């Protein structure tokens, strides 16, 4: 390879490396700032000028997970000494814990709705993709375009009739409603991606199985599914990331029961002003799964974000 004319010179590589690493560091700064803010005290978080070096505290995380009440000195006295480390942190602010916050419930909603819609989407999507890949479906191209076009509509525009419909049939602010909605939104992506993955599986495998006496259905789940497993897994992660991060539908269609974390996190407030460390803590916890998924997805990233238009 050393003679290859297309191999860049070491100097070029060095220059490219420095530029890219430089960009990566700049682009990571806001992320690092979010994570760091989660470990600041509320005063340090809004200190002027901003503090780069600070004494880390878990106050933000405690505030994220608890509801607190300002206590009068009499109440503090009556409550006795703090029993746990987190009670102690709260006492430091002259407050007592009055209960758990809603963050846990919102996070759980995100998990239920995210995984629920992803599972449903995979079941429906794999079946449809298989049919589109292997059979002659009437109006196939039109149907495929129709499925894709549903993703082009602005969510706010779609939300008006969906709001009316959900209200009518009692799906407003329910987990089921959100699962169905996210499934519908994600279906287009899944069908397109999965069709690509299934197209790549040689049709000969199934034909051999059919000759062996398998029914079509058996051939599907015993031959095709295992072969498509990687593709299904990466498609699933894409659907999950969408449902996980979605905001517009969630903010309009959910409130008390089925609200997910993205509409909730920006509204975390502390006593009086905005509790930035708690917001940052909430954001950090919420970002971790997505970062892990990103790393898992590296190889299929491109296909996923381009609806399978670009394969690498």
């Amino acid at each position: 390879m050393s003679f290859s004319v297309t191999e860049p010179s070491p100097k070029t590589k060095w220059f490219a490396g420095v530029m890219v690493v430089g960009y990566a560091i700049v682009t990571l700064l806001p992320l690092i700032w979010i994570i760091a803010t989660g470990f600041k005290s509320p005063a340090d978080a809004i200190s002027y000028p901003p503090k780069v070096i600070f004494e880390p505290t878990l106050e933000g995380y405690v505030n994220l997970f608890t509801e607190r009440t300002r206590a009068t000195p009499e109440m503090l006295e009556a409550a006795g000494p703090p029993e746990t480390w987190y009670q102690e942190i709260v006492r430091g602010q002259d407050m007592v814990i009055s209960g758990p916050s809603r963050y846990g419930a919102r996070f759980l909603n995100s998990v239920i709705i995210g995984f629920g819609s992803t599972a449903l989407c995979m079941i429906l999507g794999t079946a449809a993709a298989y049919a589109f890949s292997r059979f002659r479906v009437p109006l196939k191209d039109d149907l495929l375009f129709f499925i894709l076009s549903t993703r082009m509509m602005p969510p706010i525009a779609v939300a008006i009739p969906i709001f009316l419909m959900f209200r009518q049939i009692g799906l407003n602010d329910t987990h089921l409603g959100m699962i169905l909605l996210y499934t519908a939104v994600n279906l287009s992506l899944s069908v397109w991606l999965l069709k690509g993955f299934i197209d790549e599986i040689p049709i000969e495998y199934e034909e051999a199985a059919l000759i062996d006496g398998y029914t079509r259905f058996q051939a599907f789940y015993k031959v095709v599914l295992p072969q498509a497993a990687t593709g299904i897994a990466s498609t699933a992660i894409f659907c999950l990331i969408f449902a996980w991060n979605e905001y517009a539908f969630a903010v309009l269609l959910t409130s008390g029961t089925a609200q997910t974390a993205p509409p909730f996190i920006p509204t975390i407030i502390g006593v009086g002003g905005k509790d930035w460390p708690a917001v940052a803590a909430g954001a950090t916890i919420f970002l971790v799964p997505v970062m892990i998924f990103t790393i898992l997805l590296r190889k299929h990233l491109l296909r996923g974000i381009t609806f399978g238009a670009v394969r690498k």
Partner: protein
Amino acid sequence: MTTSPIDRVARATPAAAARRIRGLSDRTIAWIFVAPSIFLLLAVNIFPLIWTIRLSFTDFRVNRPNNDMEWVGLRNYQRILTDDDVWQTMQATAHFLIWTILLQVLIGFFLAFLINKKFRGNDLWTTIIVFPMMLSPAVVGNFWTFLYQPQIGLFNYVVAFFTGADPAGFSMIGDVHLAPWAIVIADTWMWTPFVMLICLAGLRSIPDSIYEAAECDRASKLRQFFTITMPMVLPFLMLAVLFRGIENFKMFDLVVQLTGGGPGNTTTLTSIDLKREAFEKWRTGYSSAYAVILFVTVFGLASIYVKALNKVKDR
């Protein structure tokens, strides 16, 4: 392929009989497989769409259940298309769209070009660069308001560090002239990796042999860039522009969290305006017409663009 008890049973059964008993015709299977998806899409996408079109000709309001609904013909459409404020939001959207795409294409392509130099660890750094685009836009927008705070935010201090300006001297989301750029910067931060990835795929799709042939012809590097690299990457770039264009035309979450549409209406993108009409004023009929106009615009622009894209691809 492994064999399981079921496989052995299946094999023991004569093929034709098995198909007759347990198998369904391909055509039936095809329908069973496709129908649930189509049904869900019809119920959650198409039915509501038709409903929207119907409502767009009425003066229906969700928050006035006691009022009778009246047919108003095309009045809603006429009101929207002659409203200066609506055109102002279109302008804001256009500014946002054009600049985010331009910046993301320039930076994204340049990054991809560098990463394609295959320095050591380029895979690791690519993954790191990609993080921002995987985050929740609402959470990102919310946090950027914090980064943009003049006295306490990181952004102003970074700018001050490089330019020597006073970090408290300017406000990215408070100033009419800076706010449209504040949303462009945040969106560019988040989505440049997207364009970069697609460009990278384009660059990697070019076979080395073409460059080798060019090298034999003594074509200069610059000439190679313009005669080989650019034309080969162009379809990919156009695809990236298509996706970013559709996404940013729909833009709501990031910007609504970042500026709320202000100051004044400088960053009130069409989606934000629509949300106000539909879910704050509850002018359901009016906003349905608004939604229909947006559909038509997106589809129209996207289909023209896709035609152009196909032409480039076929070349």
